[in-house]
């Protein structure tokens, strides 16, 4: 029984087989196409339908886009050129409006001779923020980042440079008050001093000081009022200021919501729920209309500043909730580990808890920022001339009456570039932190 097959099973290989190429259907493009597009009946159907949809969209959009007209003084001129080149009723994009009015869409009514200031301001801003965004740069450069807002103010608005300098000095005074207070009466006294002293300084001393210095050495650029700001520049200034200010405020609110101190806890919850529960547009109207009822008559409180404050408060409530999610995701062992080493509350938050919680919250935070940035277009409803507002006023002129798509495509592309950059940055940051501590 056991050796029945012994004769037939015996085998000795006499020549070895060389490795060969796999069959053509299993490699390269063909394999990819088969696996990803035509792997089954349902997949084949979906592929065909998708291709049809894409073809339908492109066949309508592409002619419009490719048959563009760049040189024209008005919409009717555009149409004449189109009729001549592509025949009447052909789809044709009239990008001449962008060529003619791009400076308005970008800068609003900002004086033409000061465009360089706006451009330089944004370059300074990006350069100043890079040490914050990219940790591989030397940490000493963070001092330059701290100075950036003041430099940007001096460039965008201008006026005597002593105004921003005197304002910046307030922070140095705060730091001084903290260290003096710390020596005199411990942490609590130091914290109170660090808040009260600079506020008193800003209220009563900063103005006269700036005026006195201006009297002695009148250096500075011509002042440009906020009313002249407009276009994409306005959206960017409001958006970026609100983003920068809402992150620290949102983090404080998130910590407040976790706090065991009753008053702080309830105030944080109330703030977050009220701000978040009301549409942004309502807050913007509050900023533009209602605030005047509460302020003393004759107070001239810059509308742009009011909008920045409202947008900041609004997005800080969202940031607070996103960060709270990150805080909740940390195991309690991290808090206990920090506590057991004797770190105090702020040390353990700053060194242990927040770095980890913020890392978890990055996608949510950037999501909120992108939303906020796009929401800045809502300021058109309270009369600020953002790109949408300017597109309306451009359409109101006789030359460009009736043009829609070209303007909105341009504005859309501008916003897309900014939002897509933010999204890519967040992915870069996530990957970097992932690599550092897996």
């Amino acid at each position: 029984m056991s050796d029945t097959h012994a004769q037939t099973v015996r085998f000795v290989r006499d020549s070895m087989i060389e490795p060969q190429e796999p069959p053509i259907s299993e490699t390269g493009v063909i394999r990819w196409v088969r696996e990803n597009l035509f792997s089954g009946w349902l997949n084949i159907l979906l592929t065909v339908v998708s291709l049809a949809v894409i073809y339908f969209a492109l066949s309508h959009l592409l002619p419009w886009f490719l048959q563009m007209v760049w040189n024209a003084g008005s919409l009717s001129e555009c149409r004449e050129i189109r009729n001549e080149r592509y025949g009447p009723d052909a789809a044709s994009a009239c990008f001449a409006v962008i060529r003619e009015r791009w400076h308005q869409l970008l800068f609003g009514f900002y004086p033409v001779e000061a465009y360089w200031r706006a451009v330089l301001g944004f370059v300074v801003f990006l350069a100043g923020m890079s040490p914050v965004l990219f940790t591989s740069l030397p940490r000493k450069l963070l001092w330059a980042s701290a100075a950036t807002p003041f430099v940007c103010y001096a460039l965008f608005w201008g006026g005597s440079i002593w105004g921003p300098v005197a304002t910046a000095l307030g922070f140095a005074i705060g730091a001084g008050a903290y260290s003096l207070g710390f020596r005199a009466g411990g942490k609590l006294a130091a914290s109170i001093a660090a808040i009260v002293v600079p506020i008193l300084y800003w209220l009563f001393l900063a103005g006269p000081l700036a005026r006195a210095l201006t009297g002695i050495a009148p250096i500075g650029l011509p002042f440009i009022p906020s009313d002249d700001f407009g276009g994409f520049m306005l959206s960017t200034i409001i958006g970026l200021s609100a983003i920068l200010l809402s992150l620290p405020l949102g983090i404080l609110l998130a910590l407040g919501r976790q706090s065991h101190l009753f008053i702080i806890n309830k105030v944080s919850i109330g703030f977050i729920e009220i701000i978040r529960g009301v549409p942004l547009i309502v807050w913007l109207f509050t900023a533009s209309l209602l605030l005047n009822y509460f302020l003393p008559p004759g107070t001239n409180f810059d509308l742009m500043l009011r909008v920045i404050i409202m947008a900041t408060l609004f997005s800080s409530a969202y940031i607070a909730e996103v960060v709270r999610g990150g805080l909740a995701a940390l195991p309690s062992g991290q808090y206990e580990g920090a506590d057991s080493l004797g770190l105090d509350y702020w040390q353990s938050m700053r060194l242990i808890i927040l770095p980890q919680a913020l890392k978890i919250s990055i996608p949510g935070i950037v999501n909120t920022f992108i939303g906020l940035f796009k929401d800045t277009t809502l300021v058109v409803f309270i009369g600020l001339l953002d790109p949408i507002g300017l597109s309306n006023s451009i359409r109101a002129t006789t030359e460009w009456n009736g043009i829609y798509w070209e303007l909105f495509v341009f504005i859309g592309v501008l916003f897309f570039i900014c939002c897509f950059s933010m999204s890519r940055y967040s992915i870069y940051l996530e990957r970097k932190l992932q690599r550092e501590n897996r």
Partner: protein
Amino acid sequence: MTDAALEVEQRREIDRSQMTVSDEVAIQITEMNKWFGSFHVLRDINLTVYRGERIVICGPSGSGKSTLIRCLNALEEHQAGRIVVDGTELSSDLKNIDTIRSEVGMVFQHFNLFPHLTILENCTLAPLWVRKTPKKEAEETAMHFLEKVKIPEQADKYPGQLSGGQQQRVAIARSLCMKPRIMLFDEPTSALDPEMIKEVLDTMIELAEEGMTMLCVTHEMGFAQAVANRVIFMDQGQIVEQNEPKEFFNNPQSDRTKLFLSQILGH
């Protein structure tokens, strides 16, 4: 002596020359009570720990042993009675709490290393920020203790890249960097694979040999017999029996202790 204890003894000679108990009181607990809500977790705890003592606390789960040692550095708040650690009374005064925490090292069951910092940064963090030690000195101290727990070569890695046993040894080194006078261990080997328990216990034995005051919640009875000078058995939030290890294991007095010992040593 049980097999486990023999194993620890045989692994290497334990040097008892430094393991002396002084008359100086390290921790004094009087009439301490604690509740979680309405649940009475710790009942009338009285305990005096002398400097240099190695105390092992054991008992069934839920008996309050972890809560007891977590009260000693105020990770849990006690509601009645007094706890005096190193001459400082634990009250709600935050300053006292931070002082005590920087003097008392704690090692957790789940290590609680900081995953976003390297091993070296984990060890230097508290000295830098709490003790305000200069960076260079803090790093030298950290490397000294990392060598002591035999993983100096891992200093630049992140906790997630280390094995459980290595992480727990880093946690011990991290505590030691604060030069604590008392070390608390909360089930330091319970989350480890059997092979890694040995390396952590060896580190703890070394600490004991140097005369560190240690309170250790553990089920490692071999460790208790080899290095402890006192074993405390807790049940239902109270201290049921305490004795020196030999007596405790060979001649337990209370029925509850006998039952517990028969269950954990029975196989």
